[in-house]
C-alpha cells in the first residue's frame, strides 16, 4: 500500500473500505503534509480539529460497512465556498472575519458524501486573477520549480491554493471554481487534473459570486478518475439556484474508462497562437497523436471568434462583478472603515477592502454598464458571446470534443506580469471560451517542458457531456503517464 499522501482518492476509498487504513490516519497524514508545506501559503484557514472530528465520524460510519462516495476522504475547500461557521474570505480583506451562517450547496454535498474538511484554500481575491498574486492573504507558491532554479513560481489562479495543495499532496482533492479558466489554468501549472463542468451542473448557491453567468464550481484532483469521483458528489440540481440544470447526473466514474475509439476530436486552428512557445505546440501535437493511437479521429475545425473571447470576457465578467460586489459595503458583514457619512463609509470601506485588481475590474465593469457605454461595450460583448457559443455549436456538428492546449505557457515567476494586466489576462486565452459558451472543459497534465514544469492539455466537450470529456481526459492521462512529482511537496 502506498503512503497515505501518495494515494489517489480511488485507492484510498478501497483501502478505507478494506479497513487497511482509517480516515483518522489518512486525515492525520494530510494534516501533517499541510503543516509541512505551510511555506506554500496554500491555506487561508486550516481546520485540523474539524478534520479530526470529521474523520472520527467517517470511521464510525465505515466501521458499520456504510458510507458515502467520499467517506473519510480529506479535502480542501476553496475559500470562495461559504462554509458554515468557518471563516470565508474569498481571498479578500473586505470579508474580514466573515463566518457564514450557511453552507454552500456544493460543499454540503461533499460532507454528505462523507468527506473530511482540512481547511479553506487560498485564491485570487474574489477569484479575479491567474496567478494567485491578488489574494489579500498573500501569494501562493507553486510546489513546482524550474529544474535547478530557486525562484518561486505562481501556481496559477484563481484556484491557486487548491491546485498547489493537491500538487503538494496536502489534500487528496480540492474544490475550485472557474470563471475564465480558474480551475484549468492552475491545474495545468501544477500537474494536476481540473475540470470545469457545464454551466448549471454544480449549484452556485453559497459560492461567493464573481461573474454569475460564467462561474462554475469543479474539482482539482490528482487523477481524472479522482476528478470524476469528486464531480459526481458535487453535481446535481439545486432549487436554490435558478440557473442550476434540472438534469440527471450521469455516472462520471463509469465514463472514465470508456475509451475514445471512434470519437471525432476537433483541433481548432485558432488555438495555434503566433508567438506561443514551441513546447505548447509540441505538446498539443503529442496529444493529437495520443488520441489517434487510442482510436480517435482528429478533425481540423474552426472556431472563428476565438480571438474575441478574452475581450468579451473582460467586458462581461467585470460588468457582472461590479454589481455582484456591490454588497460588500461594510454594513452587514466583513470590514467596515468608518466615515462621516454613509457614502464616505462605503468609499473608505471599499477602498481599503478591495485590492488593486478587484478595483480595476469593478471600475471597468461600472464603466461598461454606465449610461452611454452600455450598448457599445456590454451589449456588443453579449452579441459576440453569442457568436463564440455558436462557433462551438457548429463545430459539434462534426466532432465529439475539442482538444487544445490548456495554457499558452508553463507557470511563471511570482511577481511577473503584475504591471501588465493584459499580459496577465492572456493566461486564460485557451480556457475562457468554454466559460463563455458554458461548456465543460478539463485540464490534464500532458508532460513536462524542458524546464521540468508541467504543461496541460485541455478537452472541451458538449454541454452536459462531461462523460466524453472524462473519457478523452483519461485517454490522454494514460498516454502521458504523468508520474512526475513537484519538489515542494510534503
Amino acid at each position, binding site marked *: 500500500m502506498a503512503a497515505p499522501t501518495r494515494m489517489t482518492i480511488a485507492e484510498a476509498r478501497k483501502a478505507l473500505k478494506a479497513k487497511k487504513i482509517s480516515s483518522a490516519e489518512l486525515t492525520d497524514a494530510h494534516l501533517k503534509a499541510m503543516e509541512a508545506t505551510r511555506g506554500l501559503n496554500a491555506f487561508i484557514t486550516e481546520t485540523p480539529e474539524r478534520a479530526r472530528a470529521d474523520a472520527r465520524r467517517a470511521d464510525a460510519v465505515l466501521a458499520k460497512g456504510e458510507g458515502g462516495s467520499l467517506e473519510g476522504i480529506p479535502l480542501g475547500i476553496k475559500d470562495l465556498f461559504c462554509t458554515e461557521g468557518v471563516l470565508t474570505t474569498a481571498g479578500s480583506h473586505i470579508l474580514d472575519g466573515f463566518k457564514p451562517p450557511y453552507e454552500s450547496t456544493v460543499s454540503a454535498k461533499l460532507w454528505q458524501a462523507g468527506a473530511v474538511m482540512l481547511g479553506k484554500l487560498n485564491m485570487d481575491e474574489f477569484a479575479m486573477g491567474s496567478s494567485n498574486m491578488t489574494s489579500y492573504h498573500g501569494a501562493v507558491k507553486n510546489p513546482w520549480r524550474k529544474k535547478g532554479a530557486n525562484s518561486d513560481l505562481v501556481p496559477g489562479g484563481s484556484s491557486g491554493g487548491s491546485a498547489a495543495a493537491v500538487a503538494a499532496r496536502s489534500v487528496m482533492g480540492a474544490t475550485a471554481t472557474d470563471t475564465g479558466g480558474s480551475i484549468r489554468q492552475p491545474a495545468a501549472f501544477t500537474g494536476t487534473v481540473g475540470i470545469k463542468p457545464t454551466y448549471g451542473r454544480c449549484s452556485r448557491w453559497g459560492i461567493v459570486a464573481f461573474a454569475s453567468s460564467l462561474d462554475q464550481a469543479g474539482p482539482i484532483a490528482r487523477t481524472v478518475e479522482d476528478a470524476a469521483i469528486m464531480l459526481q458528489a458535487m453535481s446535481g440540481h439545486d432549487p436554490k439556484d435558478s440557473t442550476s440544470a434540472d438534469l440527471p447526473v450521469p455516472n462520471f466514474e463509469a465514463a472514465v474508462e470508456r475509451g475514445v475509439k471512434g470519437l471525432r476530436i476537433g483541433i481548432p486552428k485558432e488555438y495555434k497562437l503566433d508567438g506561443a512557445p514551441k513546447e505548447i505546440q509540441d505538446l498539443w501535437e503529442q496529444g493529437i497523436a495520443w488520441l489517434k493511437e487510442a482510436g480517435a479521429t482528429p478533425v481540423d475545425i474552426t472556431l472563428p471568434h476565438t480571438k474575441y473571447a478574452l475581450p468579451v470576457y473582460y467586458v462581461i465578467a467585470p460588468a457582472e462583478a461590479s454589481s455582484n460586489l456591490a454588497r460588500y459595503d461594510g454594513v452587514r458583514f*466583513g470590514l467596515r472603515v468608518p466615515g462621516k457619512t454613509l457614502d464616505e463609509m462605503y468609499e473608505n470601506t471599499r477602498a481599503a477592502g478591495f485590492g488593486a485588481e478587484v478595483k480595476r475590474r469593478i471600475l471597468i465593469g461600472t464603466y461598461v454598464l454606465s449610461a452611454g457605454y452600455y450598448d457599445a461595450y456590454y451589449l456588443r460583448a453579449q452579441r459576440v458571446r453569442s*457568436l463564440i457559443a455558436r462557433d462551438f455549436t457548429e463545430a459539434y456538428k462534426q466532432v465529439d470534443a475539442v482538444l487544445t492546449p490548456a495554457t499558452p505557457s508553463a507557470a511563471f515567476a511570482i511577481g511577473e506580469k503584475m504591471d501588465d494586466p493584459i499580459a496577465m489576462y492572456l493566461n486564460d486565452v485557451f480556457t475562457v471560451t468554454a466559460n463563455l459558451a458554458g461548456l465543460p472543459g478539463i485540464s490534464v497534465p500532458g508532460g513536462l517542458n524542458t524546464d521540468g514544469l508541467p504543461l496541460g492539455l485541455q478537452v472541451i466537450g458538449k454541454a452536459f457531456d462531461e462523460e466524453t470529456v472524462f473519457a478523452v481526459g483519461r485517454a490522454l492521462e494514460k498516454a502521458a503517464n504523468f508520474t512526475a512529482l513537484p519538489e515542494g511537496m510534503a
Partner: protein
Amino acid sequence: MSLDKDTVRKVATLARIKVPDSDLDHMAKELSGVLGWIEQLNEVDIAGVQPMTSVAQMRLKMRADEVRDGGDAEKVTQNAPEGAHGFFVVPKVVE
C-alpha cells in the same frame, strides 16, 4: 477609448471606491489600456446577432409561496460590524 481623470473619478464614485487624486492618472492610463484592447470587438460583425445573457437553455423555475426562511435575526446580524437593538447601523442618512 481613452479615459480621463474626471471619468475615472466619476466611475469610482458610482462604484463607491475612494481613489486618491494621486492615483487617478495612473488608473486612467491602465483602464484606458484595457478598454482600448477590448475595442477590438468593434471589428466583429454583430448585425442580427442576439445578445447572450445566459448559456442556461431552460425555463426559469418558480417556487411555491411558502414561508420557509428568515425568523432568525441573530443569524442575520451576527456578522455585522455594527448593530443596535436588532438593527444594522450606518452613519446617519439625511433624506
